[in-house]
């Protein structure tokens, strides 16, 4: 999947470092979605638009989640959004989350902070009507990661796009 995202974005930009960030975000979002979706379907969408040197990338996952997981997800995304969007804010938040995750033990806890800090992407969460009355105890959750002010770099003399696999 990560290779697919890499190759998809390489079709529209030569900025290998940026492509790598998008692939990282796609991987983490999809892992989260699959973890909470259980046996139900998970969808991943990737999109990119370019205008005068800037690139906007969107990664969207869509899956079912129960109310408790949805509440936790909303709380985490709200916390991340409130932390700010500067690089300093992202770094400071990530360091706090690393301490918190290590103290908490167990698996998980760093996927969304990693997207926010390492990929420097902004996160939103929404729910949509499923139209499936038999699934009333679950919501369809849409999580979006969006690049924030990504200025496209040209291919330099170093490794080109696709260096990550």
């Amino acid at each position, binding site marked *: 999947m990560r290779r697919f995202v890499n190759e998809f974005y390489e079709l529209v930009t030569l900025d290998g470092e940026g492509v790598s960030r998008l692939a990282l975000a796609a991987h983490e979002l999809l892992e989260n979605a699959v973890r909470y979706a259980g046996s139900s379907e998970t969808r991943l969408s990737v999109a990119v638009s370019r205008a005068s040197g800037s690139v906007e990338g969107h990664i969207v996952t869509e899956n079912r989640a129960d109310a408790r997981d949805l509440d936790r997800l909303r709380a985490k995304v709200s916390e991340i959004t409130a932390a700010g969007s500067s690089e300093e804010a992202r770094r400071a938040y990530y*360091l706090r989350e690393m*301490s918190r995750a290590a103290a908490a033990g167990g698996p998980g806890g760093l996927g969304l902070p*990693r997207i926010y800090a390492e990929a420097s992407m902004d996160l939103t969460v929404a729910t949509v009507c499923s139209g499936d009355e038999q699934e009333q105890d679950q919501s369809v959750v849409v999580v979006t990661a969006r690049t924030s002010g990504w200025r496209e770099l040209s291919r330099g003399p170093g490794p080109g796009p696709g260096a990550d696999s």
Partner: protein
Amino acid sequence: MRLEDLGWSQKGFQVVVTGSRERVVVDLVGDASLGTDRIGALVSGLHDEVVRKKTPIVVVDMRQLSFMNSSGFKCFVTWMCRINDLPETERYRVRVLSSPGMYWQSRTLQALQAFAVDVLEIAEA
């Protein structure tokens, strides 16, 4: 426990551990997200052995590591915490060999180094 026994090989991911009195070397090859469930045990066992043998440095070679997911990264964060929690005289260093061709490594390792500035050093090779 022999250090070598901490390693394993699976489809798409391989861990090789070798050691001497002076240093322990951990080679990570492939996609670590395929072996996340065993990375915690790897770094925990490694830490215990290194402390027991008073080895001054662990070298983690990530030059052929194509990716590590956040669960694997968390294992490294926890490892750094365990080293920091040691009495100063028992602490050891971790040196990571990274590849500039693996773009994710730069961001991930910079974050880890900021978290464990007195423990971790990064060498691009």
